[in-house]
């Protein structure tokens, strides 16, 4: 049996913050509440969750930048607390964003510094830096100061730094946030290329399409707990099917909603208000249920718009996150 690349058992993390000067008021926030996770070597695993769900906290614990409050986590067979120094040379971390770079020196100097901290052999250092700069598309800008870089270029430099020491496992924390569509697409292409080279990737993201496009398995984290882990197809089944019907109209009665829910093959009914208009979303398990059957269940609405689409990861995500009790 192949050992897991990441194995997490009952992991918790509590943040304490103090307010006041003389009479400190201590506030405790549970960022992670008993997380269990198993990621296979060579897998591209996505972690989704709303703001404050604990995604970055989990990524930082697994990359040895934060200690857990309880539970255990092993990455590449090493304990993230006890074996942190040994583990650091085998993993890469890309936090991204505008910060995290020495902006008064060039991109190449930034990489040179981190290459030395990672102990990349001197004989290989320059060629590795040049190769990484070329690979992320900064070949021509490597000798420019980072302060002259665009947001996308900085993101590319973050990626180059995270990969400089050829890690076996890469943590990518929202790698495309704030990037223009072209840069984001290039980043996703780059991530796919890394996967084909056998790098295990742990990706946290807000973007559903990105997770759907890239990830082999996805975990949804809500309020510090993993509420589901599966492939996108598996998650679709979990939330009640890969067919979604949307009905737009006005003045629906509760009894009509109940009638829709009672239709054979409908597993879930969600309503959203858009001003006076109401959108009813049906998650449909059965392949037999037709759109006109649904329309017939709402006879008093001649203006009704009914359409079918494939259940998107965003639907699944919202279903899972909204289901989770506070």
């Amino acid at each position: 049996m192949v050992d897991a690349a990441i194995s997490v058992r009952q992991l918790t993390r509590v943040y304490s913050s103090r307010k006041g000067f003389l009479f400190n008021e201590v506030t405790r926030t549970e960022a992670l509440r008993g997380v269990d996770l198993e990621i296979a070597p060579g897998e591209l695993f996505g972690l989704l969750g709303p703001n404050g769900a604990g995604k970055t906290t989990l990524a930082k614990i697994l990359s040895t930048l934060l200690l857990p409050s309880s539970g255990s986590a092993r990455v590449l067979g090493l304990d993230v607390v006890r074996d942190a120094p040994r583990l650091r040379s085998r993993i890469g971390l890309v936090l991204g964003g505008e910060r995290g770079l020495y902006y008064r020196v060039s991109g190449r100097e930034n990489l040179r510094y981190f290459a030395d901290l990672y102990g990349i052999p001197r004989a290989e250092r320059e060629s590795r830096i040049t190769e990484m700069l070329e690979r992320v598309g900064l070949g021509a800008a490597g000798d420019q100061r980072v302060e002259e870089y665009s947001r996308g270029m900085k993101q590319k430099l973050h990626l180059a730094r995270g990969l400089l020491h050829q890690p076996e496992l890469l943590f990518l924390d929202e790698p495309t946030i704030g990037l223009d569509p072209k840069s984001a697409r290039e980043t996703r292409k780059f991530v796919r290329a890394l996967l084909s080279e056998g790098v295990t990737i742990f990706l946290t993201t807000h973007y559903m399409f990105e997770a759907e496009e890239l990830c082999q398995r996805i975990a949804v984290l809500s309020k510090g707990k993993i509420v589901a882990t599966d492939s996108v197809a598996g998650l679709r089944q979990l939330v009640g099917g890969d067919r979604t019907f949307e009905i737009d109209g006005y003045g629906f009665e509760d009894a009509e909603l109940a009638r829709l829910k009672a239709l054979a093959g409908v597993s879930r009914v969600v309503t959203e208000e858009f001003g006076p208009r109401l959108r009813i979303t049906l998650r449909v398990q059965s392949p037999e249920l037709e759109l006109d059957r649904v329309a017939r269940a709402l006879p008093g609405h001649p203006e009704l718009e009914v359409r079918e689409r494939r259940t998107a990861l965003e639907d699944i995500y919202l279903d899972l996150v909204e289901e989770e009790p506070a």
Partner: protein
Amino acid sequence: MRKVEPSRLRAFLASVRLSLLLFLADPQWVIPATIAPVIFGFAAFELYQGSGATLVLYAILGAGMMSMWGQTLYGAGWATGQDRELGTLEPTLSTPTSYLWVVFGRIVVNAVTGLVGGLVVFAVVSFAYPHPLPLHAPVEFVLLFAFVLVTLASVGLVLSAVYVYTRYAGFINNFGEFGFYIITGSMFPVVLLPFWTSPIALLLPPTWALDALRYASLPGYAGFGWGFTGDILGAVGTMLVYLAAAGSVYHRVEQHVLTVGNLQEY
């Protein structure tokens, strides 16, 4: 994938290189490194020029020390504070190298620029003063000048851990800086200070090193009762304690910041 092993020397040299590049890229450091020491030196010269060559030398040594210490502590500490501000503390700590070696490299660069500042003071005042300054033992003076810097760096190494510990380190640093000038006898002889300050002064390696430096530079200087050799032994002994403490302090601070999770705060 190839396994890589970081070396402390590589990390130290990388830190030295980056610190130099950042230093040269940011001209604001010219002020504490060269201009401020000259102002200190001239102020000391104006105050003491009528009091004889020995007192002038005493005063410019104090001014030089102040600039060196300011540059060593403030520069080294601020480099870590800057890591917080730039958000580079997390990526640096995510490498297999201990942060201690990174800080050590920065302190050495700042100490050397502080040394330049101290020598600038000496050169400027020597040029301005009409009589030759009566250096008792010039060779020992230069060696001890560098030695004082090493002792300053040992204290700076321990104190800079505060910058990793908390983002409010600048407050502590600014508060302590002037106290340090006085306690170590940079400007006034330690014997002039209240008795209760003496134990604190003797716990600081630069106090001893400064006294030894004055033995080497001031003719007929009578400092601590232990004499020149006693000063050297005191400086080396206390410095070794600080260097040994630095490793432990950094380990504890690193554990603390990983526990509280404040690395990204600035």
